[in-house]
């Protein structure tokens, strides 16, 4: 078994200074992971704080068998999942209409790329929300966080084959859902000129011929 990082050992013993350093060291990561799992959400801060509270409480269970990052990913995705479940079981006022009302009336033009990116991010996550929790988690960890299937398998505690299967079906469902969304039509139009934005695409010249 690998030797534990001394900071983690001290934190496990409950040293407040070590816990604080742990927070400072990992708060960026935890925020990023929670943000990727939840999407743009007003509850991000709640979830991040709750995640660290859980880190403090359950740090004792980390033995060093897996990577600390794996343990942390698992904890954060669990906290986010619990949070989403709690929020789901309460009837909510859909605020999107009120926002749309304001957006229509705003006299100042908002052409800045930042606003457009936010809109698209919201659109993506609204489609992601239609996936089951399991499929969505795997998709986010793989495509957004770039983790390999083997590590995801450890995080979600399922066989690697299951992870790959969930990933396949998640993408399939998402493609269909995105293709059927008329508000995303302009995205398609932007792409008519070429394969813009395809990750891991091989280079192509102007004719679309593959460059060897």
């Amino acid at each position, binding site marked *: 078994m690998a030797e534990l990082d001394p900071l983690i050992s001290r934190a496990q013993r409950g040293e407040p200074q070590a816990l604080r350093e742990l927070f400072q060291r990992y*708060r960026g990561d935890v*925020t990023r992971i929670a943000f990727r799992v939840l999407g743009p959400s007003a509850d991000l801060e709640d979830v991040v704080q*709750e995640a660290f509270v859980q880190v403090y409480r359950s740090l004792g269970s980390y033995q060093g068998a897996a990577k600390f990052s794996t343990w942390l990913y698992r904890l954060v995705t669990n906290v986010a999942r619990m949070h989403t479940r709690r929020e789901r079981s309460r009837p909510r*006022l859909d605020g*999107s209409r009120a926002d749309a009302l*304001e957006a229509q009336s705003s*006299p100042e033009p908002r052409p800045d790329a930042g606003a457009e990116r936010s809109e*698209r991010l919201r659109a993506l996550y609204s489609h992601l929300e239609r996936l089951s929790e399991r499929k969505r988690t795997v998709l986010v960890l793989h495509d957004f966080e770039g983790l390999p299937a083997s590590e995801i398998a450890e995080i979600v505690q399922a066989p690697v084959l299951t992870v790959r299967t969930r990933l396949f079906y998640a993408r399939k469902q998402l493609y269909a859902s*995105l293709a059927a969304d008329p508000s995303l039509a302009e995205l398609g139009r932007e792409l008519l000129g070429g394969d813009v934005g395809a990750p891991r*695409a091989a280079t192509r010249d102007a004719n679309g011929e593959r460059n060897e």
Partner: protein
Amino acid sequence: MSEARSHEPKLGALRAHREGKLSAAGRARIEQHLAGCETCCEARAGMQRYETLLGIARGAPAPELDFAHMDAVLAREAARLARKRQIQRVARPLALAAVACLAFVAMRASREPAPSPRPAQPDLRAAPAVPSQARALAVHITAIVGAPRALDEVGQPVLLTLDTMPREGWILETPARSELHFVLEDGAALLIPAGARIRLDRVRPDEVQIALLRGRVVNAVQPLGPNRRYAIAAAGYAVEVRGTHFAVEHLEPGLGVQVDEGAVAVSRGGVLVAEVRAPGRWRGAGALAAPGADERALRRPRAPAGAFETWPALQIPPWPQVVGWEIDGAALIAADELRMRVPPGALALQALLESGRRVPVQITVDPLGTRFDPRALQLRPRHRAGSAQPEAGTPDAAQAAAVIRAAQPALQRCYERSLRRASHGALRARLRLQIDARGNVSRAELRAEQGLPVPATFAKCVRGVAQRWRFEAPGGSGITFDAPLAFQTRN
């Protein structure tokens, strides 16, 4: 290859094609297939859209969070864990047995049916039959809005002023549009919002117990020593505290607890039912929703420092458009006449408007007391600079949206209540509002779109909420407009 019209989209091949991993012949085959296959074309469109959006998502930075605040909360949690560890080290063998016993009993208790609704008198000691040796703590009122009521130990009504000092046995009540803030000699601060009724059962250095008879109370309690107890009793439960900031709400027939800092232990009939730690909400036995469904963070009652008993009083009358005040670290509603103890000299206030805007103002408080006239805020309905004049019949849509958004919590409560028995699924509705010349809502009618019926209780509740709204005065004969609303249940 199958000639079937619809088939599973060839995702693997499409991906390979996009990534340029196919041979020339392979590419040609796919492109020929795509020319005639709508399913695969759709899949490819979806794939392209996903890849674009994914690129945006991967590049999007997480928003800035208030880590300083989190650091403070977590530091307290770490300290709490450290203390717990210390206690465990000392008392471990005994503790294990006790915890097991409690857990068993608590599980049994939670399976009991919800108590039948009846005016809940807490099943705990009431006013002490035997006077304690320790003298009672002084209770100082620090702010009053409107006209809260009090009954003294023998049931006589008492007029509450900033100089009144409530005592053990007193009942304090806040009718609508009133609010009471007070502190105990040991530094605990309490905020009684409108609609509550409490009884000061015990107010001693070693024990504070408050019976929450109705409504909610928000507490900020100094960290307690080992021999001190601070508890709120409500609906048959006792909520016991270990140095925290939390709210307890009596929700007939149950109880709600929200903890912003620290932790509370909830017990029933002397049996531990739940431990709620910050940030946490808990509800028991039939309560519909935990408190604070309308506020993400609790309004913080404030314990003024120093010899505030000698501070002068600040008075502020209610004023249209002003819904609240932030003064000297306390947040108060502005529904009625406000009186608050404040330090003499320069004071910074903030008026919170209906529209969500905050208006800062600086005043000087006279040592003998000051009355602030909100006219000085110079509030006037005005359009945002540069925005077009709204069309006749349409209020400034942004302002309308802001008013409605601010009312979301109230509308949510209407919806939650009406869902008690029936399930409605998604509901789109149109709220038709008639605004008179001064900006008051003279009529509010809720109609569902798509021809679906709107439950009568829900419509009535929404009407009641909407009729309290105020908009910028349109003048003339007023206006009518529709506000779209959507409600969803997620299962």
